[in-house]
């Protein structure tokens, strides 16, 4: 494994019958970077993410995530990645603490580790008062922050976030991004899809998926120059048109 690359994808492709959802995408993600994965609805973002997290087989091409092949070394791979789906990653009928205990247990953390991490997390999120509250009684914005913390509970090499901030208010979004920065400083690579173009600007590098193909890849500055745009909105419209 190349030490400084957490994802290496080469000609990664997924076909559903005649329809090519992901069409020969090739890219790498460096360790510790925040990688923005953009695209219109139906551009193939979620499909690509599912292949990279080992829950969908690829049709052709290859990819290594955290040093493990996405088709043949799934179980090892899954120990080293975190994933936060757009909704529903927490059990609504369990409390904050019980969710953490369950996921910590599934990832094989020791009892002490689970307790220590629970305490740290409560403090970091400032949510001590709701540790024994059922998740369904917690507001959406908080849930998203909790879900993110659960996704990095086992300190994965990389965490995949599928539109983590959709439906939350601007202040919570800002707070959420602070959590992402903290995780990145901790050495966790962040792979994030989003609809919000201002959020794309928080990323170290940005890629754009259009109809299954990766049309652009680079830092914000590089993309703005290349497409002669004043912001990501304009880049998006030019590319996704």
């Amino acid at each position, binding site marked *: 494994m190349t030490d400084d690359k957490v994802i290496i994808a080469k000609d990664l492709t997924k076909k559903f019958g005649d329809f090519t959802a992901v069409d020969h995408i090739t890219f790498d993600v460096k360790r510790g970077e925040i990688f923005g994965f953009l695209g219109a609805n139906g551009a193939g973002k979620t499909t690509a993410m599912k292949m990279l997290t080992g829950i969908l087989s690829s049709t052709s091409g290859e990819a290594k995530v955290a040093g493990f092949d996405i088709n043949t070394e799934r179980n090892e791979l899954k120990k080293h990645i975190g994933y936060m*789906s757009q909704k*529903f*990653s927490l059990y609504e009928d369990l409390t904050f603490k019980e969710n953490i205990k369950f996921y910590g247990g*599934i*990832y094989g953390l020791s009892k002490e580790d689970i307790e220590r991490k629970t305490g740290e997390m409560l403090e970091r999120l400032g949510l001590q008062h709701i540790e024994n509250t059922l998740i369904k009684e917690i507001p959406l914005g908080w849930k998203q922050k909790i879900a993110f913390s659960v996704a990095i509970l086992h300190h994965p090499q990389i965490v995949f976030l599928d539109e983590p901030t959709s439906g939350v208010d601007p202040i919570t979004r800002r707070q959420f991004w602070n959590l992402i920065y903290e995780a990145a400083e901790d050495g966790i690579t962040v792979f994030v899809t989003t609809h919000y173009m201002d959020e794309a600007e928080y990323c170290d590098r940005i890629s754009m998926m259009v109809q299954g193909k990766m049309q652009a890849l680079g830092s914000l500055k590089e993309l703005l120059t290349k497409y002669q745009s004043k912001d990501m909105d304009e880049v998006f419209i030019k590319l996704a048109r």
Partner: protein
Amino acid sequence: MRRILYIVEKEFKQIFRDKMMKPILFIMPVVQLAVLSYTADFTVKDIRIFVQDQDISPLSKQLINKVSASDNFTLLGVSYSYEEGINEVEKNKIDVILTIPEHFSRNFNSQRKTALFITADAINSSKAGISINYLQNIIRDFQVEQAEKKGIQVKPGIEVITRNWYNPDLDYKFFMVPGILVLLVTMIALFLSGMNIVKEKEIGTIEQLNVTPIMKYQFIIGKLLPFLIIGLVEFTVGLLIALYWFKVPFLGSIPLIYMFTFVYLILILGMGMFISTITETQQQALFLAWFFSIVFILMSGLFTPVESMPDWAQKLTYLNPIKYYIEVIRLVMLKGSSFSSIKVNFLVIVLSAIFINMAAIRNYKKTA
């Protein structure tokens, strides 16, 4: 192993946090066992009879008295006219009409051949058959009694002496209660497990679980264990009701019945898990579980004997787990049979349990 325990813990919390779950698990089955055992009784009692008496003689009066004195019959009318009786049958108020023809008394007393007529409402054919049978017995007794009174020698026939083993009082509940207990345990296990994984699919948490390093067998075992425990508790509660409320005898070995129940539950839970892996919504799972339970119950020999089913249906019952379990529970409880008498059933259930659980593990796809 630790991972499995974390799943078990989570499942238990979720089951008991659900407010409806406790009554579903513990009150519903008790009510069903209590109510069904009293109602699912196929012994025919209180047959409503009408007598058309055209003879109007002391002898016909005596016969009518004998019929109305019987526990099985309720005399609801006597008349000269047949019409009156048949009208009542049409209104569903009478089950059987006994016709005593003119000259019945005269012919009987002069030892000439005489006949009585029985008309039965045969919509429920088995009830009609049983009613006619009871009535014939009463008439035969009556004939012997009357003959003896008059000092007439009755032709010697073959006397049949019957003895009812294992259930000497012919208490129908002894037959039904163990069977109904099997149904309850089966339904609870099948529905709970059938709805479980598919519920995670529906709410979306399955996706989060699929990206974790949990192994498929750990997941299935972790899901199965809580229901196995609940199933055994449920069985114990039902068994206590059977023994202490219904006073069903228990002649066999308690460990033997628990061993069988344990394996049986693993089989049923595996079926539920399998249903859960092939469906996408709880609604689909519910319908499938319902389909299998209805077919298995009706073909189990609980309500109707397997031996009286057509040949092809009898062959199909070899695939029916409920049939094997009902046979075993009746054998062990009522006859005190030992392992050697139930070993074929045991083997079938063990092999099916292994097969269906492997299929469920195989079919649960962590990767699409």
